[in-house]
């Protein structure tokens, strides 16, 4: 009995609960919706139906689930030439680390439901969000496949470009309000206005950084199929590939939640009250809905844009988006002085 109690304690320990429930279960649903939307929206732009016959009542919503189950039961091939330990472990670690930032994100202003003390939560979340991509580079390296290595190198180039942009842009709200407390940032947005209006430059830079970091179009360069097949994942099959693909979407989801909190007003306009429903569930749903919208917009770019060349994407990142993020940060500091 005490073991069960211990397990329950561990599961309901707020950071772990948040990572496990919101991070895994909810994000799986959101990833399914996003992939479905990505394929359906592209199909609509391209004047066709998209996935349909798998579940005609739901308009093909179960398609990503069918793909996932199929991947789960396909043979996971581990070629003789790979570095097997890293090959197996890296994608799993990448997937777990992708949702770890959720352990530091508040979904409500009610202190009873904060996962951790909120003093430096923004810094913690940003720091945790930068670890996962390293493991994608590692997957490419462990595969010992030429395409995977090229893809991994591309991913490394992209990391150096976008991580800085993401951090600088997301620190702009903190600069305005002189706090790293995400709850304070959201609360301040209630009295002022949302940061998407207050600091649109930082928002644009942060959004582009999210698209770049998760290999969304037009920055889908590490997995650019016409040169490097599936990029770092070229040798992966079965469930390991599913985990890899999922990790990408999970990271996009985690970063989208950060954007929703920092720039889109978090749980506003809902004011969290007391109790589980009013204090935690409803604000969480609002935040998740906002994050979903960010994800869907990022997914929709697939239908409109081709992909940039690697050097063009890096040039764009360093020459235009990074200065944009810096200007956003400067704007945040100026606003701080004005307030």
């Amino acid at each position, binding site marked *: 009995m005490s073991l069960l109690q211990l397990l329950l304690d561990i599961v309901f320990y707020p950071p772990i609960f948040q990572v496990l429930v919101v991070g895994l279960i909810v994000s799986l649903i959101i990833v399914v919706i996003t992939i479905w939307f990505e394929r359906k929206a*592209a199909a609509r*732009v391209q004047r066709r139906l998209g996935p349909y016959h798998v579940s005609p009542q739901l308009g093909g919503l179960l398609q990503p689930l069918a793909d996932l189950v199929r991947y789960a039961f396909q043979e996971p091939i581990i070629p003789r030439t790979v570095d097997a330990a890293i090959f197996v472990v890296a994608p799993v670690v990448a997937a777990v680390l992708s949702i770890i930032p959720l352990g530091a994100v508040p979904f409500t202003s009610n202190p009873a439901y904060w996962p951790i003390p909120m003093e430096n939560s923004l810094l913690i979340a940003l720091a945790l969000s930068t670890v996962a991509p390293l493991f994608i580079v590692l997957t490419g390296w462990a595969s010992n496949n030429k395409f995977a290595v090229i893809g991994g190198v591309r991913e490394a180039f992209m990391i150096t470009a976008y991580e800085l942009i993401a951090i600088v842009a997301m620190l702009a709200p903190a600069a305005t309000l002189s706090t790293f407390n995400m709850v304070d940032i959201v609360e301040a947005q209630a009295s002022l206005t949302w940061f998407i209006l207050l600091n649109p430059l930082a928002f644009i830079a942060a959004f582009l950084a999210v698209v770049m970091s998760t290999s969304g179009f037009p920055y*889908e360069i590490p997995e650019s199929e016409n*040169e490097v097949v599936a990029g770092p994942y070229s040798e992966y099959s079965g469930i390991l590939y599913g985990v890899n693909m999922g990790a990408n979407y999970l990271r996009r989801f985690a970063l989208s939640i950060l954007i929703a909190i920092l720039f889109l007003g978090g749980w506003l306009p809902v004011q969290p009250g007391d109790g589980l429903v009013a204090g935690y569930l409803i604000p969480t749903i609002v935040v998740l809905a906002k994050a979903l919208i960010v994800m869907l917009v990022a997914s929709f770019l697939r239908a*409109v*844009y081709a992909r*940039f060349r690697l050097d*063009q994407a890096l040039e764009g990142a360093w020459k235009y988006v990074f200065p944009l993020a810096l200007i956003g940060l400067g704007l945040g500091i100026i606003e701080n002085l004005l307030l």
Partner: protein
Amino acid sequence: MKDPEAREEPSSGAKIGLPGFKVRKIEEEVYEVFIGPQHPGSGHMRLITRIDGDVIVDIDPDIGYVHRTMEKLAEGREYIKNIPLFERMAIHDACNVTVPYVRAVEKLLGVDPPPRAKYLRSLLCEINRIAAHLYGFGIMGIFIGHSTMYMWSFGDREVFIDLAERLTGARQTHSYPVFGGVKRDMPQGFPEMARKAVRYMRKRLPEYEKIFFENPVVRDRLEGVGVIPRQVAAELGLVGPTARGSSIKYDARLAEGYDAYPELDFEIPVYTEGDSLARTYVKIEEIKQSLNIIEQCVSWLETREREAPMHPKFWEKSPPLWKKVYQETGRIKLLPIFASLKVPPGRAVARGETARGEIIYYVESDGSTKPYRVRIVSPSFRNLPVFKYIVPGHRVMDLPAIYGSIDYFPPEADR
């Protein structure tokens, strides 16, 4: 898949090497990547690419994965059976590919198709050209990651495939031109359908410009990439939109002046930039010209009486019932005489302009029912040097952009 033994010192005695393998040493900083044949960016061939950093230093196309021995098979088959054989070369451009062969045999036979047949051939050729250009666009779109471009152009291509299907009865493999004529006349209601398709395509082309050519990402990917200067293009003997994008004003339709083209009013678009974007623009402009030609052909055919679309030498041999059926429905029954057609001895060369460029046939007859020798040089095969001479020096991600813009089709190149 690499052969470690192929990496030794070049020995002068080794004459027959593995296909595509150069016997060579690899410098340490150069990365050798085998792109294809199972690769989303290769098509039906292998590109042995050597990369230094992100820059391609050497590329060695290893083709032949679709070599179906057409030249040899043609020597064993009757003349008429070779038409469907050759059309498998560029299956989505079937009429353009077979017309020069038919013309070469017609030169040997000494027959000239009547004007109606010529117009019908030109009509189908232009429909095919549009469909093939749209196919090329689609492949190009998917190569640079623009899936909407692929879907749009493949969707619009169906309009012209439908048009060709209405005219000939087959989606792609029409086998339409035969010696001295064509296989079928224009069916009822075809002119309206053709005009509707032309109107539709004219409406769509500005939308293409909007989503594709004015898209900053696409322009970045194509502009200034794979520049082929005019002199180099001529030396390499490039053909079609690839040559015309490098300001070579050459089109076999004018140079040879076959079928109805001397009587039709059209222009040859030429761009001077020589980059991937110019090659793509050439195709857009050619689609516009082809739409004009379709309209001209349809109006010409509509206003003329239905008369035999077959050379009198053959047409007179058909029974009266067949002629009556033709007058009523436009259908022509293929004469059995073609099955054992003896062609007078001689040699003939004919060239024609397919969507990808000039195709040239050499047909030699020894007087029997089968050709003694047929030599085909297809446009894609002549565009092959682009990989070897133009791509090196570009970045890895430029390879698909150049590949897509020269619209290389391996089954055509390998024959």
